[in-house]
């Protein structure tokens, strides 16, 4: 039992989200656009508020937002911004 790979590292979605809160994050939405900014808060529908956000479409910076609310149904994934 104790030899199970990665057993101790099990992480539920709620834990994961709590961990990345208040940190730089990347959110990908249905239409392929990507949002990079500070993750301010989110709810169970995966509605997300980010600040200082940049919008990338096809790898190209399209727009900047001070604060932005992303509707959860369009969110494909959310994760910590990869270290540069």
């Amino acid at each position, binding site marked *: 039992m104790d030899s199970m790979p990665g057993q101790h590292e099990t992480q*539920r979605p709620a834990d994961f989200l709590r961990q990345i809160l208040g940190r730089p994050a990347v959110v990908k939405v249905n239409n392929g656009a990507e949002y990079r900014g500070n*993750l301010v808060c989110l709810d*169970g529908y995966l509605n*997300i508020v980010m600040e200082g956000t940049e919008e990338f479409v096809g790898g190209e*910076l399209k727009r900047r937002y001070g604060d932005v*609310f*992303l*509707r959860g149904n369009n969110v494909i994934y959310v994760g910590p911004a990869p270290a540069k």
Partner: protein
Amino acid sequence: MQSAGSAAEGASTNGALTGGSILGEPSDLVRLCLDELVYVKLRGERELVGRLHGYDQHLNMVVGDAEETVMSTEVDEETFEQIVRTRKRKLPLVFVRGDTLILISPLFRQSGASR
């Protein structure tokens, strides 16, 4: 043995998570947008800029004095060139169904405009 996905635990994701901000949950940002100028991105390459007069939990909204921008790409019949066409129109008062909404952003807190 622990289980990663018990419903009781999972249900807690239905609450809001906040990163030490004045915003307790995402909809708080939308509430702050009331009576303010907002930028709204909709499905189908549509954008609205207007004043937010109302919304509900589905993000259905009523926006006043709005300008809508619709972007469409077309292929030129002759040259086969890709043309991005933007059409703009004024919408004095419009109800927007929430399921088409991708994002909403208050313009008064916007740090930088589009490039």
